Structure formats: structure tokens, C-alpha cells
């Protein structure tokens, strides 16, 4: 973990945003130190994109304060925007331009030019491994290549804070690994990173500190170890099953040894004290309430368990 030095790169407090009468972000605040990788982990619709849109000056918050390296950020803070490199959740590249042209264009908007721009474009093309295809229009790229370029544009001007909004969504496992590797490397090189995701494995792997967001609120924050301590010495028990999963989860939740129970797809996720001891009883209850259990996994507590514990719902939809 990187030790914070001096002024934080990002400091925000009490930020709120409503769309009509729907409150998307309800008073979120956190800070990121130099060289730190901070993860915002939360399910779909938690308010992650809305939060970082305010941090990167795309949206005006209804309330609250955002400072980057001490400078306030609003949609009109052109100077402060230089500090941020944004990698939007949805691809934001021109399909009818090639990778070099995309990078050069956004580089110029950042005030780069001449030999410095050329050098940096070549460097970024190496980092995102697109040097061979740099002259092809991006509409001819695979999904993973487009994602990599999307990230490359955010890196180009060496921002003080790189913001990545779910950069691995819809990416094949190989490209996903490449993306995670490069984010890891950037963090090691000392760039501060704000990373949003709803994959807890990504948050666990990349982030020095993690904020868990749900329904527009930051419900917990800390290192992975800090967060897992919320759950205590519990196990996470995952039953892959068919049948009436919701009914089974509800029934299991009533058992005194089960702290929390939730459903995620074809899985029932339970937080259980000493799972191995209680397994027979749990399986019997599952059968009785109409679920056919196909496999059972026991893990020590992780962020998934933390989310379940805090919200009573599973992280994945």
C-alpha cells in the first residue's frame, strides 16, 4: 500500500445528484491519496457512474464539494480538468478514425502537440498493445481492442488521477487480464487511480482501498482486510441450485447459524459461522424448501460476503 503524502489527489464530500425526483447519489464522500488505487464497488445502478461524472466535471453536483489536488472541480473548471484522465464506461472513440488519429485528437485537446504528442502517442500504443493496428479504423477492431484504446486515450496526457469506469465490462477473459495487468502497473508506477466495478475479484486484486456503494450511498470503506472484518470469522457458503431459490434463501436466513442469505443468478449465497459443521442441516433445509443443490462451495469471507452482510442482497444481479 502506498502511503499518502501531502494533499490528497481527490477529496470529495457530501456530493449529491438527483435526476428528477430520483436521487442517484445521496451524499458520497471519500478521498484518494497520491499513488493510491481506490475502488468503488457496487451493483448496477448504485450511482458509480454518476459519482465519477461529477468528479470529472461532466455533471454539476446538486450539493457537496469536489477538489482535485486542492482545486475545485465544476463543469467550468477547465484548468482542473487537466488533472483527470477519464475512461468512460461506454466506449468513447471515433469509429471512422484510426487509433493514432483518436489519440492525437484527444491529446491536442489536452494541449499536447508536436514531437511530445507523437512520442507519447507511440508510447501509449505500446502500452495498450495496438502498435500493429494503429493505422486501422477503429470500427474494424475487436471489442477488446476498442476497450484498450478507450483506456489509452485516458492515459495519454499522464493525468494525476486516472478514472476508469467498469473498463472490463463485456470483454473476453484474455483482454480483461491484459487490462487488469496494465491498471496494476500504472498503480505501481505511482498514478492515482479511481476504479469502479461490480466485480469484487477486480476490486480485491487492484485496489488499495475500496468503497462499497449501494443505492447512492457509500455504505462501507477501507482496505479489503478492514472490510472483511465487518463480517468477522464467518464463511461464505455458495449453493449452486435449481428450483425455488428465493424461498430456500428466505428459509435458510431464518436459521440461527446463518447470518445472511441472498440469491445471485443460480446461486444462493450464505454467510455462515463454521459452515462445515452445519452443512448437512443446510442441505436438508434446501431440499425441503424446493431447491435441488448441484454443488457447494465454502470460502472464507470476502467482499461479496461484506456486501451481503451490509445490504442483505447479493452483489451480482
Amino acid at each position, binding site marked *: 500500500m502506498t502511503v499518502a503524502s501531502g494533499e490528497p489527489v481527490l477529496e470529495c464530500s457530501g456530493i449529491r445528484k438527483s435526476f428528477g425526483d430520483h436521487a442517484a447519489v445521496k451524499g458520497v464522500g471519500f478521498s484518494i491519496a497520491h499513488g493510491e488505487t481506490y475502488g468503488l464497488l457496487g451493483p448496477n445502478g448504485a450511482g458509480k457512474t454518476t459519482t465519477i461524472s461529477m468528479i470529472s466535471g*461532466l455533471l454539476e453536483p446538486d450539493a457537496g464539494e469536489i477538489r482535485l489536488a486542492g482545486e475545485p472541480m465544476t*463543469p467550468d473548471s477547465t484548468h482542473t*480538468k487537466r488533472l483527470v484522465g477519464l475512461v468512460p464506461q461506454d466506449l468513447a472513440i471515433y469509429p*471512422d478514425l484510426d487509433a493514432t*488519429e483518436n489519440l492525437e485528437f484527444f491529446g491536442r*485537446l489536452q494541449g499536447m502537440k508536436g514531437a511530445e504528442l507523437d512520442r507519447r502517442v507511440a508510447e501509449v500504443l505500446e502500452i495498450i498493445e495496438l502498435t500493429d493496428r494503429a493505422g486501422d479504423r477503429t470500427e474494424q477492431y475487436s471489442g477488446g481492442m476498442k476497450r484498450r484504446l478507450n483506456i489509452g486515450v485516458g492515459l495519454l496526457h499522464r493525468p494525476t488521477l486516472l478514472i476508469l469506469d467498469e473498463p472490463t465490462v463485456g470483454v473476453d477473459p484474455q483482454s480483461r487480464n491484459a487490462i487488469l495487468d496494465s491498471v496494476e502497473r500504472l498503480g505501481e508506477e505511482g498514478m492515482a487511480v479511481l476504479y469502479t466495478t461490480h466485480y469484487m475479484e477486480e476490486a480485491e486484486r487492484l485496489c488499495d482501498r475500496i468503497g462499497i456503494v449501494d443505492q447512492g450511498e457509500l455504505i462501507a470503506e477501507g482496505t479489503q482486510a478492514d472490510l472483511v472484518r465487518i463480517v468477522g470469522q464467518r464463511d461464505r457458503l455458495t449453493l449452486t441450485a435449481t428450483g425455488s431459490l428465493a424461498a430456500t434463501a428466505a428459509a435458510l436466513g431464518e436459521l440461527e447459524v446463518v447470518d445472511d442469505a441472498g440469491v445471485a443468478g443460480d446461486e444462493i449465497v450464505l454467510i455462515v459461522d463454521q459452515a462445515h459443521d452445519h452443512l448437512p442441516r443446510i442441505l436438508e433445509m434446501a431440499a425441503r424448501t424446493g431447491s435441488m443443490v448441484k454443488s457447494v462451495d465454502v470460502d472464507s469471507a470476502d467482499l461479496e460476503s461484506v456486501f451481503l452482510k451490509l445490504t442483505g442482497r447479493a452483489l451480482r444481479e
Partner: protein
Amino acid sequence: MGAAWTIARKDLKQRLRDRSAYIIGIVAPLGLALVFGFVLNPLSGFEFEGRYAVVDLDRGPVSQIFIENVLGAAERIEVIEVGTVAEAEALVDTEVSPLGGTEGTETADAAIIFPAGFSADVQSERPVAIQVIGNQGSETEAGIAVAMVEGYASELTSVRVAVATVENLVGAEVDRLATGVAVLQTPNPVTVLDDTASTKQLDGVTFYAAGMAIFFLFFTVQSGITGLLEEQRAGTMARLLSSPISRTSVLGGKMLSAFLVGLVSMAVLFVATTFAVDADWGPPLGVALLVLAAIVAAIGIVSIIAGFARSGEQATAIGSMIGMVLGFLGGTFFDVSQAGGLLASLRFVSPHGWFMQGLADLRSDDLTVVVVPVLAMLGFGVITGAIGVSRLRKGLRP
């Protein structure tokens, strides 16, 4: 300014790679202007003679206008009216050579077929189709038949849109057929062609060259400005807005590129029609002033539409409709200045009308005559543009 220029340059690069930009900006207006020019101007050096078989199953006013006023106006087109589709097909079918081939069998370059009920369908806004069958041996002549029919079809569309708009404006039903026919029967420029320069009226060739150019200019500019909404759809607006540049630069960049693309397409059309069909736009300086003012007007009008539209599709749909109405009212298809009455005065609600009027006034070779049309178009542009830009600037979002 630097950022606006960077954005404009990027847009121009994209437009250069976009085939539809060439079609709207150059191919369509030039094609239509050339076709009309070749057909109407025997001096163009283009040896054109066409024989068209026409089947009028409609026998209604709308088909008659085409046959008499459009086909009938072109000196070098011979019209053979036949009664049935089969007869027409036989005339254009050179493949079938009857056994014992009769020498001198009559042939036609193309057959144009108006289906029964065509005029009624036009009136009731049902979809209509005019069929053209080309003779494989006369591609050019058949192509010109297709172009003339297409030109007429777009006139019909713009008349329909205009009549519907007028109805909405006055809140009353208008006798559509009567109005449409009255409009379509306004003298075609070629029929009132007068070579004496003092009549302050454009000759047919120039009329179509300028009319098509200004009509399509609106659409060229439109696709530049709606590029803003395109950036939103592509997600790149988020990047533009998170870059250290002002919102004004983002808007300014789009307007600058729309302006330059409009200017290039007008310049190409001016040069091409001048040399290919002897269009006579008038003294270049006067024309240049009119063109610049027309581009400003188009940018303003398109900006206000984009400013109030909820999506790119909506902006394009409304913009196209307004472009058609203004083009029609402004007399880019028909010389409405010759129509008299309300129609002749209404053209001044459209910058297209001022543009055409400015060109007609330039016949007198006195440059000061463009002052009023130029100011009128700039007025349109500045007023609509100011409202549009303030809306767009506030509304810019990722």
C-alpha cells in the same frame, strides 16, 4: 479558438471519409442540376435527345403536369403516349427482336408509367410510385428519365410537406389537390425563359443549379451541426466535456466545420455548374457574399432546431422537414416569384427565397443589390443562431 479548430479539423477528416457527405453536399445537387441543365440547355454541347413512352393510367392532374410541364418543356424530348403498360414495355425492349424483324420498329429510351389513382394517392398522402423502365440500349437517356422522375417526386414531397405545414399554421383544412396543382402549375422556369438580361430572372439552367445548391446546402450544414448529437451517441461527448476546453469551443468547432463543409460544397457546385452547363450565377463577389450569408442562415436555423430537439434523430427529422418547407417556399424547385400572390410573398420568410432573389437581382451587375438579401439572411442566421447556441451550450451533456 485552438480547441475549436482542432475539433473542426477532426470533423472535416471524418466528413472526407463519409460517403453520404459527398452525396448530400455535391453528388445529389450537382447531379440534379446537371440533368436539368443538359436537358434544358441545348447550348451545353451535350447532344441529348430522348424518346420516352408515357403510360398515363391516372389521367389525373398530377400526372398531366409532369407530362405537359416537365417533359413537354424540354425541347429535345419526344413523348410517345401509349395506352397500356404492355405497349410501353414493347417499346423499350430491344432484346426481343420479332421474327422476320420489321425494319424501323418504333423504340423508346425509357417508359414512364403513372399508375391508376396516382393523383388521388398524392392528395390523400398515400405512398405513391412512378415506375420507370429503361431501355438497356440507352442508359444515359434512361438515366435522365429516372432523374427527372425523381426530381418531380421530391417536388411532390416538398409540396405535400409545405401544404401540411400551412394547414397546421392556419389551423384549417386546405384543398390539398387544388393547392398542390396550383403550385405545380406555376410556370416552370424554362417556359418563361427570356434571354434579355434586364428581366432580372434566372435562366432555367442557372435557376436549377442555384436552387439545388441552396436546397442541399441546408442538409449539408445540418449534418455538421447534428454531429454534436452524434458525439453524444458515440460517447465521445463525455471525452470532449472532460477535456480542459470550454463548451464554447466544442460548439464553435462544430459550427466551424459545418461552415467549411458548406463553403466547399457551394464552391464545387458553383464551379462545376458554371463550366459544365454554362450556369451563370453572376459576378463572383456578389455570389460569394450571398453564399456566405446563406451558410450563416443555414447554421443558425439548424442550431435552433438542434437546440430544441431531444435527440439526433428528432433533430434530423424536424430539420429535414423544415429544410424542405423553406426550400419549397423559397422557390428552389419552382420559380415562385412568378407565381404571384401569397406564394410570391411567402418566399421571403425563407432564406432560400432571399438567396434566389439575390441571385436574380445580380443580373443587373450592380453589386449593391445584394445588400438587402445578405442582411436578411444574416438576420435569419444571427437570430436563430443566438437562441440555438445558448440552448445548445446549456444542453451539452455527455
